[in-house]
């Protein structure tokens, strides 16, 4: 393999960088698009519920009800709103001013004092079933901890437990102790975003050359097909990795996602993935000869599968069998696994190595296919 870079290739690469400098659209795709998407999804998509507005109706206020509502007040998950009666609460939930109603009836204190437990009424706004289920769980948990705390205080047994200090199930979350969904969403998101920018960069840039008729002129020079492909891959690889760097920086410093693994693994995995993404872009550009179609195809065949089928948000294990098999074709799935490991767990080689091997295969397949279908001809 010769290391000498031909004058032709140097000329082409230089041209590509001059164009990148003059036409900010590729810079925007490489840097602005990831930053924007990361901000949008990082702040917008969250599977946690914070400051949920809960309407609290206390029919007969006592010291006990006050203790419970103040406990609620201190929870980061709830923003209790005191309401005079259940009718007012129902109107408020109808207007979507609150997401749940917590109703402490007149017999609350009496039953609590009598048995150490009391029923509480909970009504949830089921329009957003996902949030409703989370709120239900949080309320239940808050209720249980308050009961336990109170039982310890007054020396009364926790209802349902006959012996004090008996077995209690304690949840322990590994890798993400704060159970912040953002911590595992952001690394996955980086993979999804880099799929889009990598594929868009090459697909759009080549489609633009088709549109302007410059590729036709280029093809009738003694330049080889390999030189054309390399001149399109090299500059946009640099740009794509720059976008990757922006995304990682934002993840660490803006979203405070821990980076527990090594930087070298991150760079290496990102390089492999960028190869696969640019290969997909090249493949798209051999079909789409105008920028609009190239953009459409890039979104449909790269962004959407990466979003839905990479396991970054929807668990692959719970997908139906045929779809689960299909996810093996989505390069982002392997990168998501590596990113989540490097960010949240560290260099877990049993995760990194097989997924990196898969990425090598994906990059080879897409780049090889692109080389195969790209011709130095118009037909």
């Amino acid at each position, binding site marked *: 393999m010769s290391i000498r870079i*031909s*004058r*032709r290739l*140097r*000329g*082409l690469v*230089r*041209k590509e960088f*001059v*164009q990148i400098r*003059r*036409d900010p659209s590729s810079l925007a795709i490489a840097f602005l698009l990831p930053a924007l998407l990361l901000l949008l999804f990082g702040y917008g998509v969250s599977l946690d519920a914070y400051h949920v507005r809960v309407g609290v109706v206390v029919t007969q206020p006592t010291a006990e009800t006050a203790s419970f509502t103040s406990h609620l007040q201190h929870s980061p998950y709830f923003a209790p709103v005191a309401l005079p009666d259940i009718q007012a609460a129902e109107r408020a939930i109808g207007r979507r001013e609150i997401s749940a109603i917590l109703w402490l009836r007149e017999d609350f204190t009496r039953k609590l004092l009598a048995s150490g437990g009391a029923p509480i009424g909970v009504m949830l706004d089921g329009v957003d079933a996902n949030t409703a289920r989370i709120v239900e769980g949080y309320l239940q948990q808050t209720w249980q901890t308050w009961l336990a705390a109170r039982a310890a205080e007054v020396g009364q047994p926790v209802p349902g437990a006959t012996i004090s200090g008996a077995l209690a199930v304690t949840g322990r979350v590994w890798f993400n102790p704060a159970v912040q969904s953002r911590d595992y969403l952001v690394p996955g998101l980086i993979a999804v975003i880099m799929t889009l920018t990598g594929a868009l960069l090459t697909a759009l840039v080549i489609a633009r050359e088709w549109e*302007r*008729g*410059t590729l*036709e*002129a*280029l*093809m*009738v*020079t*003694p*330049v*080889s097909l390999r030189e054309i492909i390399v001149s399109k891959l090299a500059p946009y690889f640099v740009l794509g990795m720059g976008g990757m760097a922006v995304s990682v920086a934002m993840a660490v410093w803006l979203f405070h996602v821990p980076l527990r693994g090594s930087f070298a693994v991150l760079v290496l995995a990102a390089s492999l993935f960028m190869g696969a993404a640019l290969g997909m872009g090249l493949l798209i550009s051999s079909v789409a000869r105008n920028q609009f179609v190239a953009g459409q195809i890039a979104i449909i065949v790269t962004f959407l599968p990466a979003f839905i089928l990479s396991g970054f948000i929807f668990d692959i294990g719970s997908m139906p069998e045929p779809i689960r098999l299909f996810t093996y074709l989505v390069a982002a799935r392997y990168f998501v696994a590596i990113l989540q490991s490097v960010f949240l767990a560290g260099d877990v080689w049993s995760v990194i190595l097989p997924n990196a091997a898969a990425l090598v295969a994906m990059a080879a397949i897409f780049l090889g296919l692109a080389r195969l279908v790209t011709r*130095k*001809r*118009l*037909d």
Partner: protein
Amino acid sequence: MARNPETDAAAIAIEAVVKRFRERGREVPALKALTATVQRGGVTGLIGPDGAGKTTLMRLIAGLLRPDSGRITVLGIDVRSDPLAVQGAIGYMPQRFGLYEDLTVRENLDLYADLHDVDPAERQARYAELLHMTGLAPFTARLAGKLSGGMKQKLGLACTLVRAPALLLLDEPTVGVDPVSRRELWQIIDTLTRTEGMTVLLSTAYLDEAERCRSVLLMHEGTLIGEGDPKQRTETMGGRSFHVDAEGTGRRRLQALLAGAPGVLDAVIQGSHVRIVTRPGATATVEALLPTLPGAQLVAVPPRFEDSFIDLLSEHGTAQAKMAPPPVDPVAAKDEQDEIVVEGLTRRFGDFYAVKDVSFRVRRGEIFGLLGANGAGKSTTFRMLCGLLPPSAGTLRVAGVDLRAAAAAARARIGYMAQRFSLYGDLSVMQNLRFISAAYGLGGQRQRDRISWALAEFELAALADATSRDLPLGYKQRLALAAALMHEPDILFLDEPTSGVDPLARREFWRRINGLAEAGVTVLVTTHFMEEAEYCDRLLIMAQGQVLAEGTSESVKARARSAALPEPTMEDAFIALVQAAIHPEIAA
């Protein structure tokens, strides 16, 4: 590399080349077993109307397409087996010049020098030479996208010349370029072939450019219908071309009579005369050609290349539609009523004046031409006249209606035929006519009458169910004109109606337009074919948004008359006017 002594002698040898394209499931033949040779040295013209297969042939020669069968040898190299070697030896300029618009003139040259592996030591001298030749030396730091059309074209040419190729392929280099730049380009090409001994293959749809070529290949519908020295071809037409004048008979009426005469092959209006070409063997006397007009005068004129092309096309069975001449007594004699009044028309886009203080009047039944290079302001003027774009200042009255007050009322009396015909490609001929007539508010018996009129008048009945996308260009043009006439407008606006249509279809189109004008329809037409300007009663030449000249074609041509040019053509006149107005440095 296998060399063949026979094909080596020629620059390009094309042997029985077949090329088909798949289009929506159908095979469309682009080249039908074409065989031709291009000799070394000089300019060979690839001449033919749009769709003849010129670009396909160029791309096959450059190795951008692969023939379905047959063989092409370029400079002794088989294109199919070694396209890279061919591409290393030739220069190729595609239709859109292949320039990177966000690179400067210098950077474009550098890129192509790199691609052709030109040694940096040799570049300075070569660049200096090319920049001098193209006149681009003062603009090396300018972005290619900021150059005018003519300068882009010259830069595109310079880029293909960075490493003097043995063979230069130019695909329609003069399309969409104003006559001044066209003439400059030809001067450069002449220099190249003379001083560097380069072989040039140049495709064009302009028949007048054929006369500048050493030899020509004439293409029509994917086949070669003729080849050879254009001068010889023109000479074979000797004694068959005449100017006809008849006192007291309008030139349009005269042209219609002549076009219908059995002995006449071709009859076009040229200034105040009608220029005819007789059929081979026809007796060229007034008595034989025009028995009904014994007073007419016949003056022999020298033949031109276009005559031989028309002769060739008619031999190849491209039948002309026989049209009845318009009624002897035109319905409405031309009156002095102004149908279109434009005064002080101005359109500004920010600081830029697209149209500045343009005034003209068009009388009823007149054919009025709007001429100018790209960017001269023709299309902007047209859009304002159609009520599609509000003017910044000035008066606009069409058919007595103030366009600024009642654009819709004026539009109802205007028929408009847009560039590229704006038909619904997926609809059939019948569906197009039905839709457009309905859009103009026609219904019931009147709609049925107009549709059957259109099908009969434009000979579209046999094609009523054909999808309009698949129609040949000439038929698309007929359908577009029929559509514009559905509501019987008093005024017809035609925007570049004949671009890309072959010369026979163009003649037929103009005969229809003449007939309409005789019947009292006012016609406003834009064109970049200088000869078509001759068909107009009066014309306006625009440059940079302003009026350069207005008058009859004779009076405009007279402005360019000089001792050196006693008989200037319309193109000569146009170039003289434009150079004096906007290219003072070139004129000097």
